[in-house]
């Protein structure tokens, strides 16, 4: 197995073009588990941790551009205000040791239906910047996930960054697991309110072959939340919202939980997440 270690982004793209079957590695928190347990190694590893350009994030107008090398620890420490749902999700990833290495771009590369970063990215309308020697394209997060651990990247492409809109309103993320650390989610829900556009974003994880939005739930909430009055969120609306989020899922029975439990908990988490965000926005009781 070859080990490719470019030190510039241009060299990384050249290396990926020459070796399209090379497996990118950043934090290694997913890939190394497979190698340690004897899974067939890829023909080459393409180490991106020496590419300095990937390490930081920057702000451009209303968008945070998170470099592919930015770790969950950095997001928690530096972006909790700008990207609240992503920051909450980041706090639930693995353990401190894992969060010091793992990246959102790595989550996207793996494209697991259980990736913790995915629901917040869906709820906030994030964009994935994919680059190759042919150029850079921007992939809408809605078009990124194609199937279980399959994404829209071409063989010669690498993720350069993720663009996340600066939060326009309160956001939340909720996750079910057997403990508060080191769990692969049984299911997850992210909710993002945008009081300017009067819209509601959602994302659900571990609930379908890919992470996905609950579009009908978004429409229901956007049309019926008392945006003008800022009044209390009706119990019925919160419950209907939760039920529509659950209806958007296509869960399976597996070692972590049953489909029925996932549907039930999605409805509960989504109802609560909407209540939390609405209370935060209007100053009402949680």
């Amino acid at each position, binding site marked *: 197995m070859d*080990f490719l270690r470019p030190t510039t982004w241009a060299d990384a793209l050249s290396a990926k073009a020459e070796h399209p079957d090379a497996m990118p590695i950043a934090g*290694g928190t997913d890939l*190394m588990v497979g190698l340690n*347990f004897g899974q067939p190694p890829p023909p080459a590893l393409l*180490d991106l941790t020496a590419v300095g350009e990937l390490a930081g994030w920057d702000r451009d107008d209303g968008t945070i551009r998170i470099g592919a090398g930015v770790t969950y620890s950095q997001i928690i420490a530096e972006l909790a205000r700008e990207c609240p749902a992503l920051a909450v999700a980041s706090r639930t990833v*693995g353990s401190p*040791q894992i969060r010091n*290495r793992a990246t959102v771009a790595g989550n996207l590369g793996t494209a697991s239906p259980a990736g913790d970063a995915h629901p917040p990215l869906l709820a906030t309308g994030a964009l994935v910047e994919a680059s190759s020697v042919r150029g850079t394209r921007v992939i809408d997060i809605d078009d990124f996930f194609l199937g279980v651990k399959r994404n829209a990247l071409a063989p010669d492409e690498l993720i350069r960054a993720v663009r996340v809109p600066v939060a326009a309103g309160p956001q939340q993320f909720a996750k079910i697991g057997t403990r508060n650390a*080191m769990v692969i989610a049984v299911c997850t829900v992210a909710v993002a309110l945008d009081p300017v556009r009067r819209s509601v974003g959602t994302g659900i994880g571990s609930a379908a072959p890919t992470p996905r939005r609950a579009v009908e739930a978004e429409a229901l909430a956007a049309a019926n939340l008392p945006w003008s009055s800022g009044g209390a969120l009706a119990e019925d609306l919160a419950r209907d919202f939760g039920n529509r989020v659950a209806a958007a899922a296509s869960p399976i029975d597996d070692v972590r939980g049953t489909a029925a439990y996932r549907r039930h908990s999605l409805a509960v988490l989504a109802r609560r997440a909407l209540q939390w965000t609405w209370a935060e926005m209007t100053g009402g009781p949680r």
Partner: protein
Amino acid sequence: MRVELIVNGTERFADDVWPGESLLFTLRERLGLPGTKNACEQGECGSCTVLLDGLPVCACLVAAPQAAGRDVVTVEGLAVEDQLDPVQEAFVETGAVQCGFCTPGLVVMVADLIRRTPTANDAEVREALAGNLCRCTGYEKILDAVRLAAARVAS
């Protein structure tokens, strides 16, 4: 391939490294540093915690060549000659050791925690140690050790 890195302040190299092998394997099997423990090999248990460029990470999840040119501190690097690190002393004094297998990872993690947040409260300590498992379940004594070490470092 050859991997050159800095381990506990000393320039070291390892030859014949397979590019997909973990930093944990390289430290234990090629550099003669068995203090870092190998248990789960999937990042779940924290027994292999080392500091990589000053940050605690699971050595089992770092590909060894990724550590080239980087600074690695293992549990062997905490004591200064015969003088134990305050965290090691606190673990001894409070009896925060049962079978001892999780101890090196915990000691490295606690040393990092106390350096960053010497005033960490119990909730913060639990959060910081969430990635270190003790299969003997000796967590109460471990928390005692953290409190003792933190108090000494703070005073």
